[in-house]
């Protein structure tokens, strides 16, 4: 019964690692260990990412020609709906919080586990149940409402498996809520002695703020989708004007969740990047306190801007103005973060292993995505740009260029800690560059398409848009290749990679003060924290950046 665990067999010299605590399938599926649950999450969201990615691939192939020749219009609509639904709720939202967050939060604050381990496992099972229901809806015939489920199309007109898809999202929402609740309580109650709030790594701040959003926004989505299903089944007029409802009510409720949800998707990435950038610049993060406050500000103000998705929806002009000005306010803390990361590099002693490449990619692409958000927040401009490919480019820059890159960066950064193995840094750097190049080729042309007026969710399009679409599709194939690489060399490293020491990057967090992989109880003895985080010093330069980091490169050329 050791099929799953076999490739993860840890070195015999570390029999106490969490990976060697049991090899049976049962020891994984019934585990209460946050580290194992994190791995369960990682495996499942990776699978779902490739499902969503396959839909994206089909979309891009279809859009090579203006005519709708590869798939029918119905199928196309189902493809982008499932792409959006899966990528948002089954990949990106759980991505960093439920994997890296789950694994690292207790380690970073010096705790033995999350506060509610059983709830944590339940959260994974809920995720699984939601995924099964949604994939079931996909296999049964799909859904064609778009990920936004706008009424009255979703309630009275679509004749696809809307209820099933919504049920899947509803269930996975509770998985999110439980993860968030667990993390909030853990960060409040289980910090090691001496771990004051302003000694927390920014990653912890980010995941904490994300959790607050998860807990307060997700129930709104759950109830809104329930009401939508209710209207669809019983024909009660809440959202449908023909029955006497108000379709904008649905949009308000949906975006009250979904705008904060975009910060659920980006804050964790910001946390990861803050960890990596200080470590690889060997320098304390610039303006630590400001960074922490900025995270909180984004989380709170992020709740006040949802109406910017409704500038042409028929919402009142005055509401539009309120939401627009608030959208500019929320951009300020993001701006602070970009400036502070840049300043962190100043007078650092910078290393360029794969995690840092991903991180630099994040900073640049997040900035471009965020800056184009300012175009969309500008009322009169959004009137032109909304529901065009400009929006598509905007959010893929942040969500793929930003968060997915940060996720990959984090996986590479903590891989030695999680698995106790070193991967090939050369391959990793190659993949990072490939992804970066492919990404820009895919999505930059989409900004131009949007400005020129190419509407989104279009199966067929006017011929003058073709050249840019072809460029985008070409980019997508490079991007797909880039995304296929990391699973290959990372899995390879599980068997063939060299063993990692406790602290291969010579990094400063508590997670590096325990063995790699960590023992089941995380720490032999709970550490006592005596100083602020990010105890790096550029002057010490190379000598501080561990022996092993350089070996990473060496092992690459060997394998």
């Amino acid at each position: 019964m050791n099929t799953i665990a076999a490739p993860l067999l840890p070195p015999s010299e570390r029999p106490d690692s969490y990976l060697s605590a049991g090899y049976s399938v049962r020891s994984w599926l019934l585990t209460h260990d946050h580290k194992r649950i994190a791995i369960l999450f990682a495996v499942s969201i990776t699978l779902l990412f490739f499902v969503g990615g396959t839909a994206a691939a089909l979309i891009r192939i279809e859009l090579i020609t203006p005519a709708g020749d590869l798939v029918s219009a119905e199928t196309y609509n189902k493809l982008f709906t499932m792409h959006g639904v899966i990528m948002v709720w089954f990949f990106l939202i759980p991505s960093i919080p439920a994997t890296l967050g789950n694994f690292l939060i207790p380690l970073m604050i010096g705790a033995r586990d999350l506060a509610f381990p059983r709830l944590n496992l339940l959260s994974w099972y809920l995720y699984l149940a939601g995924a099964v229901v949604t994939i079931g809806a996909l296999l049964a015939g799909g859904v064609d409402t778009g990920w936004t489920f706008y009424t009255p199309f979703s309630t009275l007109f679509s004749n696809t498996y809307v209820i099933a898809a919504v049920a899947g999202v509803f269930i996975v929402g509770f998985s999110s809520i439980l993860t968030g609740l667990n993390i909030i309580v853990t960060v409040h109650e289980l910090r090691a002695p001496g771990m004051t709030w302003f000694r927390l790594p920014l990653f912890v701040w980010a995941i904490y703020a994300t959790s607050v959003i998860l807990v307060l926004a997700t129930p709104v989505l759950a109830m809104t989708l329930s009401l939508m299903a209710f209207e669809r089944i019983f024909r009660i007029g809440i959202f449908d004007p023909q029955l006497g409802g108000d379709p904008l009510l649905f949009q308000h409720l949906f975006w009250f969740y979904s705008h904060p949800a975009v910060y659920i998707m980006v804050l964790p990435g910001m946390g990861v990047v803050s960890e990596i950038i200080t470590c690889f610049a060997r320098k304390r993060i610039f303006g630590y306190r400001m960074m922490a406050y900025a995270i909180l500000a984004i989380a709170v103000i992020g709740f006040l801007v949802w109406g910017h998705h409704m500038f042409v929806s028929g919402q009142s002009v005055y509401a539009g103005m309120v939401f627009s000005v608030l959208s500019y306010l929320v951009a300020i803390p993001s701006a602070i973060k970009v400036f502070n990361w840049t300043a962190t590099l100043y007078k650092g002693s910078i290393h360029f292993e794969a995690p840092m490449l991903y991180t630099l990619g994040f900073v640049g692409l997040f900035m471009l995505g965020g800056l184009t958000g300012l175009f969309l927040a500008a009322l009169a401009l959004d009137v032109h740009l909304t529901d065009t490919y400009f929006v598509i480019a905007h959010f893929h820059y942040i969500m793929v260029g930003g968060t997915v890159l940060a996720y990959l960066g984090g996986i590479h950064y903590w891989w030695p800690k999680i698995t106790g193995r070193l991967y090939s840094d050369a391959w990793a750097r190659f993949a990072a560059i490939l992804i970066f190049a492919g990404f820009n080729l895919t999505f930059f042309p989409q900004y131009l398409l949007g400005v020129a007026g190419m509407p989104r969710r279009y199966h067929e399009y006017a011929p003058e848009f073709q050249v840019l679409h072809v460029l985008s599709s070409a980019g997508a194939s490079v991007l797909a290749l880039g995304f296929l690489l990391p699973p290959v060399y990372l899995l390879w490293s599980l068997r063939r990679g060299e063993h990692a020491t406790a602290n291969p990057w010579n990094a400063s967090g508590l997670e590096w003060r325990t063995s790699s992989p960590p023992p089941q109880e995380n720490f032999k003895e709970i550490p006592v924290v005596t100083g602020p985080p990010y105890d790096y010093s550029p002057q010490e330069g190379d000598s501080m950046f561990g022996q092993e980091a350089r070996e990473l490169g060496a092992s690459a050329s060997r394998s």
Partner: protein
Amino acid sequence: MNALFPWTPAASPLAGKVDVLLGALTALTGGVAVTIIALIIVFCLRYRHNTKADRTRAPADQRHRATRRIELAWTIIPLLLFLGVFVWAADLYYQQHAPPPDAQQVFIVAKQWMWKVQHADGRREIDQLHVPRGYPIKLVMTSQDVIHSFFVPAFRTKQDVLPGRYTTLWFTAERAGRFHLFCTEYCGTDHSRMTGDIVVMEPEEYTRWLASGPAQQTLAARGEQLFRTLGCSGCHGASATVHAPPLESLYGRPVALASGGTVIADELYIRDSILIPTKDVAAGYSPIMPSFAGQVSEEQILELIAYIESLRDSQGSPP
């Protein structure tokens, strides 16, 4: 060039203003982006771990007050810039929502998956909208089923079209020619085929085009006919014995309601009066008017509205 960047030049005065805003924002954000990326590249090269650059006195550790000041600067300067952009864009947005009073009205009914156009003179079109160059046009739009969105890239304007409500959109075409019309709110299977053309003609040509169509009644005249055949005139007509409000000077005026408030009698109010008469009952009348829901199509409602509007015009505009 046009294949790489299929950008239609602005074809209305407001579109030109949107382009200026777009350009300004591109310059501003582009400048910021280039600066930051340049800084990142310079730092990465200069402070690569094996260079001998001077790394002493890095700001984060020592000069605390300077750090503060820098941080304050890069909080406040963007904030001011952002507020400037906001005001500029909001002002333009307001203009986009304030049609000139003399705008010529055209009714649009959207349905899966076509655009139905009704001109005031009774001319109808499908997926085409002919307009004269140089005259402000105001579209009054509604949908028969789901939400659609009326998007004309050349005018840089768009507006969602909702069922059960009227939304408006206006423009003044500056250049003659044919421009894309796209539906930009996802509305089901053939969403991407719900497209059409805006045909902007020189005014003389437009008059000729209008004249060339089959002879027909104006919208208001058709409305008047409906008003009789549906039996509205039995209650609202001059000789009616039922106690019902006269509709002559209704349109655009405030109406006192039985529930206490007042509403302006706009298109939506008239529409609701026909379909859900119990919703807003005029003060001094009893709610005996039957609902006509299911008996009149969206187009017919628009004809009735046109008729009731025309009643006001024949009485002289309200003050």
